[in-house]
């Protein structure tokens, strides 16, 4: 195996480790929110610096490979994809951190209502992240396209949650503080799903050389 191939494999593995970490962060953030687990929330916030370190390392490695190996064709597409994916993953990690912060604030007050749609939405977003990464590993454009399509479902749930919380707020202004925080959480999850979609779109580019961003599939 050539040195360059080994380097590319190492880069891929690093992205996967970063992805696994972010996936766990997202899952734990939702768990901390639903189970009002402040310790777990704090742990998630504490792991953010690991993800940041991955992001910097991956960027540096990609720049090094571009400078020294002058990649072309699929190698070039792989490296640019890796750079973009690491950015998206880092954003997801930040959003998980934001969810935890809102969760910590929410635990200071009594629970507004049982969470039903938020975990569903979060589960869907987490699956999207996982499948986007799987699609990246296996260079599976079909799976990536499926991820892009799931984004609509998350968007629908977001507006549904927003409407529901609006009714709470209109009925009882006491709930506004909490309802707004939960709205934020829904928005964060929706953003995570968007980033997962970005990753999936990059995977399509990696495999097919076609940029499908800003187009409707």
């Amino acid at each position, binding site marked *: 195996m*050539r040195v*360059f191939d080994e380097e590319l494999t190492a880069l891929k593995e690093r992205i996967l480790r970063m992805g696994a970490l972010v996936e766990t962060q997202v899952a734990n953030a939702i768990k901390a929110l639903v189970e009002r687990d402040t310790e777990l929330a704090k742990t998630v916030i504490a792991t953010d610096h690991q993800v940041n370190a991955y992001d910097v390392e991956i960027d540096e490695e990609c720049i090094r490979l571009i400078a020294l190996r002058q*990649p072309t064709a699929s190698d070039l597409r792989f490296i640019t994809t890796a750079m973009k994916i690491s950015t998206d993953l880092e954003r997801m990690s930040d959003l998980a951190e934001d969810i935890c912060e809102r969760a910590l604030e929410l635990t200071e007050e009594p629970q507004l209502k049982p969470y039903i749609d938020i975990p569903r939405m979060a589960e869907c977003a987490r699956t999207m992240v996982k499948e986007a990464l799987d699609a990246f590993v296996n260079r599976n454009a079909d799976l990536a396209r499926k991820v892009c399509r799931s984004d609509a479902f998350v968007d629908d749930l977001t507006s549904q949650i927003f409407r529901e919380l609006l009714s709470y707020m209109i009925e009882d202004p006491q709930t506004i503080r909490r309802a707004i925080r939960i709205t934020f959480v829904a928005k964060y999850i929706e953003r995570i799903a968007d980033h997962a979609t970005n990753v999936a779109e990059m995977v399509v580019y990696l495999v097919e050389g076609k940029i499908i961003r800003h187009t409707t599939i």
Partner: protein
Amino acid sequence: MDETTALEVHDLNAWYGHTQALRNMSLSMMERRITAVIGPSGCGKSTFIRCLNRINDLMPGFRVAGRVLFKGQDLYAPGVDPIEIRLRIGMVFQKPNPFPKPIYDNVAYGPRLCGIKERARLDALVEESLKKAALWDEVKDKLHHSALALSGGQQQRLCIARALAVEPEVLLLDEPCSALDPIATGRIEELLLDLKKNYTMVIVTHNMQQAARVSDTTAFFMLGQLVEFGPTSQIFTNPRDKVTEDYITGRFG
């Protein structure tokens, strides 16, 4: 931008004795564009470019079948004078090959063969050609010194100037930088991009980065066949063919 075809190759086959060097090549080269030909050694890229001005006619045992159309005129049609073709389609070779004569005489060689004798006209042609080849400032004070005293990069630019002096429409370049250092190579590449305004160019190169840097269209040859032909940016970011991909990314063989 208007895209006119300058050279059109149809089903070109070529042989050296019994060895077939080109198989069913068909591609067309656009006017005022640089077409790069890349491929591993022995893929027929030099043979191909040497078919475009019939310089390979001089090779013993060389045979061609198929058509090469230059502005609609078949170069290999009976009655076509290869000398006229070579005046309209100039060539620069792999190794700088200036004549062992003064710089001036090198550039004036082609025009003199065409019967231009007036000193003033020759002077003007020599100056203009050397300027086009970005060499004038370096040699204007030593036009009557031997061309062999120039550096490799200067010699190659002199060869380009010499080719331009007969005012061709197409310039063929057969690995023009393979004997040059990176700085000289950079200057030649810059020159080619500059010349693109007025000339159609075909460049054969071993250096894929060079093809990527200078060309608009790239043709990838292997074993005497055209594997892929397309816009350079597409060939280098998203080649359609697996073999091209392997060659471009260095996973060849």
